[in-house]
Structure formats: structure tokens, C-alpha cells
């Protein structure tokens, strides 16, 4: 073998393994479902942004790896992780026991309440099964809000399930829905902030019972990728200590 060839091959080898500060953790791809404002969405010029995206990028920078975002529809997001289309999911995914059977979660990085939203003219005061009898409730298909509404209100009310939060807002604008049940930050951004005065929050923030609402949002990994999950947990702890987490949080939700 010529000396140039040997040199060339070792050079390629060196470049391949360079650039990752943490030897155990390689560059990864992260799956995300957009739009889900303000957690993940696109700016008018098409850039991905949002709380998850900024926090995810900060975590990757802290670990010292490159992260690439892969957009994937919500109802195929866990199968996509299993099929190795990406290595992690950071997409407002609530940690719960059902999902724990499938994936390995990081420590929770955010705990959002869910809330009911209705048109400003709505006369619903407290959403109980009795007060929502015969009403049409909108939820996003396959979300924990879907499970909660289906089990607690499915017998008395019509439940309309949507593929995206956008379709649901469109139908709420059209007057086809009496009330929707959403993650509070998402509902606030898409319904309250962008349609001043047309919508209001009904009742209190809902985070109980735990069997539905889980322990907050986590980053999901394949079960065997424990090292990767540990790296993210350490980075998350560091960002919370050094104030970076606080900065990103207040950019999106105001001061704590």
C-alpha cells in the first residue's frame, strides 16, 4: 500500500472522530412535531424555533455535540424513534407510564398545565361532565388531553380529534367547537395572544390526576441509550444552575 493512501485513510479517520468533546456521546438527531406554539414552531422565514428548540440547542451545546432537528408528525413520533429516524424526541412530550414502556425519559425539563379554552362569549363556567353535556370538545389526537377528555367526557360530549393544533384552532374560529382542551402555553399562544379578546380560559389550570398528566415534559430516548439520557440530565442540571434555563424560560413564558 502506498504511503499516501495510508496517510489519506488515517486523515479521514481522524476527521471522522474529531469534533465530539464527549467521547461516549455522538452527534444526534432530535425528532420534533411542529407547529405547537410556543414550544416549537417555525418563524415566518421557515426557521425552527420555540422553547424546546432553544433549550435543546443549549443542551447540545453544553454536552458538546451537534444536534439536527427532524420534523415528524405527532402520531408517528414514537415509532419514528424506534425506527432510528432520529435518536431523541423533544417535542412537549409528557412523561407517563404508558410511554415509559416504550421509551426512556430524561428528567422533566418543564411541567405545563393543561387548560380549557372557549370563545369569549361562552357561558361555560366550570368544565364538569354535567356542564359540558352535549357540547363539542376539541383535542389533538393521541395527546394526554385526548385520553383525559375521552375517559372523563367521552360519554356525555362529542369529542373531535384533530391531527394538528392548527386544524383545531381553525374549527374553533369557525364555531364548530364549544371548548378545547390544550396544553396551557400552546392554548395561550395560539388562542389568547393571537386573537385578542376572542377567547378565554375556562376554570383552573389542570395538572391532576397524575395518571393522565404525568410528571411534566421529558426528552425521550430509546431504552438502551442510557448514556445519552444521562448526558442530557447532567447538562439540564448545569443549565438550571448557571441561569441559562431561566433565561430561555422567561423569553417564552415571562418570569417564573
Amino acid at each position, binding site marked *: 500500500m502506498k504511503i499516501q493512501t495510508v496517510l489519506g485513510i488515517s486523515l479521514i479517520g481522524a476527521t471522522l472522530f474529531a469534533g465530539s468533546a464527549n467521547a461516549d456521546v455522538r452527534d444526534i438527531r432530535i425528532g420534533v412535531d411542529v407547529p405547537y406554539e410556543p414550544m416549537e414552531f417555525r418563524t415566518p422565514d421557515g426557521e425552527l424555533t420555540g422553547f424546546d428548540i432553544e433549550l435543546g440547542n443549549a443542551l447540545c451545546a453544553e454536552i458538546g455535540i451537534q444536534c439536527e432537528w427532524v420534523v415528524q408528525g405527532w402520531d408517528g413520533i414514537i415509532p419514528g424513534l424506534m425506527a432510528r429516524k432520529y435518536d431523541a424526541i423533544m417535542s412537549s412530550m409528557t412523561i407517563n407510564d404508558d410511554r415509559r414502556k416504550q421509551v426512556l425519559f430524561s428528567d422533566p425539563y418543564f411541567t405545563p398545565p393543561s387548560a380549557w379554552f372557549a370563545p369569549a362569549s361562552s357561558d361555560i363556567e366550570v368544565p364538569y361532565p354535567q356542564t359540558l353535556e352535549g357540547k363539542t370538545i376539541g383535542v389533538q389526537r393521541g395527546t394526554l388531553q385526548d*385520553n383525559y377528555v375521552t375517559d372523563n367526557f367521552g360519554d356525555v360530549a362529542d369529542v373531535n380529534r384533530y391531527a394538528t393544533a392548527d386544524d383545531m384552532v381553525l374549527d374553533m*374560529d*369557525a364555531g*364548530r367547537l364549544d371548548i378545547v382542551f390544550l396544553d396551557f402555553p400552546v392554548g395561550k399562544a395560539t388562542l389568547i395572544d393571537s386573537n385578542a379578546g376572542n377567547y378565554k380560559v375556562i376554570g383552573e389550570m389542570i395538572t391532576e390526576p397524575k395518571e393522565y398528566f404525568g410528571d411534566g415534559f421529558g426528552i425521550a430516548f430509546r431504552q438502551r441509550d442510557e448514556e445519552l439520557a444521562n448526558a442530557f440530565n447532567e447538562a439540564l442540571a448545569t443549565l438550571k444552575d448557571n441561569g441559562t434555563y431561566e433565561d430561555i424560560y422567561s423569553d417564552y413564558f415571562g418570569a417564573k
Partner: protein
Amino acid sequence: MESLTTWIEGLLADNTIFTLQTLSYYGEGLTTTVQLVFLSLIIGLVLAVPLAIGRGSKHQWIKMPIFFYCYVFRGTPLLVQLYLIYYGVVFIDGIQDTWLWVILEKPFVPALIAFTLNTAAYTTEIFRGAIKSTARGEIEAARAYGMSWWLMMRRIVLPSAFRRALPAYGNEVIFMLHASAIASVVTIMDLTGAARFVYARFYAPFDAFLFVAAIYLCLTFSILYLFRYLEKRLLAHLKPSGQ
């Protein structure tokens, strides 16, 4: 009925996905799918017959609008038509205050309208072809008997055209059943909607969709047998003799 429920419950005892609850979703989905497809096919058929006759008219002002209608509805995806009719109409100002909103508010009627218009366009073309291929001799014979245009249509052209159109129309019915799977994008809980619900709830794509595929297969075979029976009855005179 009581014992049937217990029997099913026993069968499903070791099963976390197919409980009585999820089976009832599939059951409701089956009803919705059958209703939606059956209604749109019946209404589409009723619309298609006069349209097919008009499509072959000598007058441009009858022929052209029907040609245009078929061209648009056969030239665009059914999904796009469904989106336009369900989500598009809400952008018409003030539609919520008119009587139209009573029928357009729930997703069933918009889906029915989209499916009906779509299948009517295809069926029109199927019938037009069949009418056009009527043997000249039959028409000349009818004229020679002094039949009026209407009598000729009723007694000679349409009955034989329907027979010729039957195999192609059978295909259209099956295509319509399969096309109805997109109804779930406008929140209708049809068979596919039920499967997507079970899939999203249990993260079990294989179980949810294989089960629903089996139901669609059963429906398709029932339709196939119905049309085979009809063809046997109505096209008996075309069979080689002695069989």
C-alpha cells in the same frame, strides 16, 4: 345478547388493546363508513344518470358545464376537495349566521357532499362511455319504430348502457369505499378514524391497522360478490350459449 357480551369479554381477557371499549369504536366507525359510502354512492348515482345523458347532448350549453364539472372533480384529489368543503367554507363571511351552517357545522355533511360530488363525476364518465357505445343498429331500429327520444332512452339505450357499465361501476364502488378512509382528517370517526385513535392511544400501529384492514377486506368482498351476482343476472344473455 348478555351471553354474547360475556363470550367476547372472555375472548379478550388477555388483551390490552382490543377491549369492548375499543371494539365499540371500531363498531361505530364501521357504521359511519358504511353510511357515508352508501349515501354518497346512492346520491351520486342519481345525479350521474341525467348528467351522463346531458354530457352526450348536442347542445354546447348543456354539454360544457357538465364536462367542466367532471374535469374539475376528476382532476383534483378527493382530499383537497374535502379540505375545501370542510375548512374552506368557513372563510365565507357570515356563513355561520345562515341556514347553510346548520348542515355544514358537523363534519358528516361536508364529507358527504365531497364524496358525492366526486363519485358523481366518475360515474358520469362511466355511464357516458356506456351510452356512447350503444350499437348504432339498436338506435336506428328504435327510430324506425317511431320511438320518441325519451322512449328510446328509457327502453333501449339506458337499460343496455347500465349493463355495460356494471363492471366499471363495481370498481368505482370499491374505490369509493377505500377513498372514504380520508374522512378522519375532518374529525369523523370512521373505520380509519377508529384505527388511528387506537393507534395513537396504545402506540400499536400493526394491531390497530391490521384489524381495520381486515374489516375493509370483508366489506370489499361483500361488494365484489354483490356485483358478481348482479352481473350474472343482468349479463346472462351475453354469455356463450350452452353454459
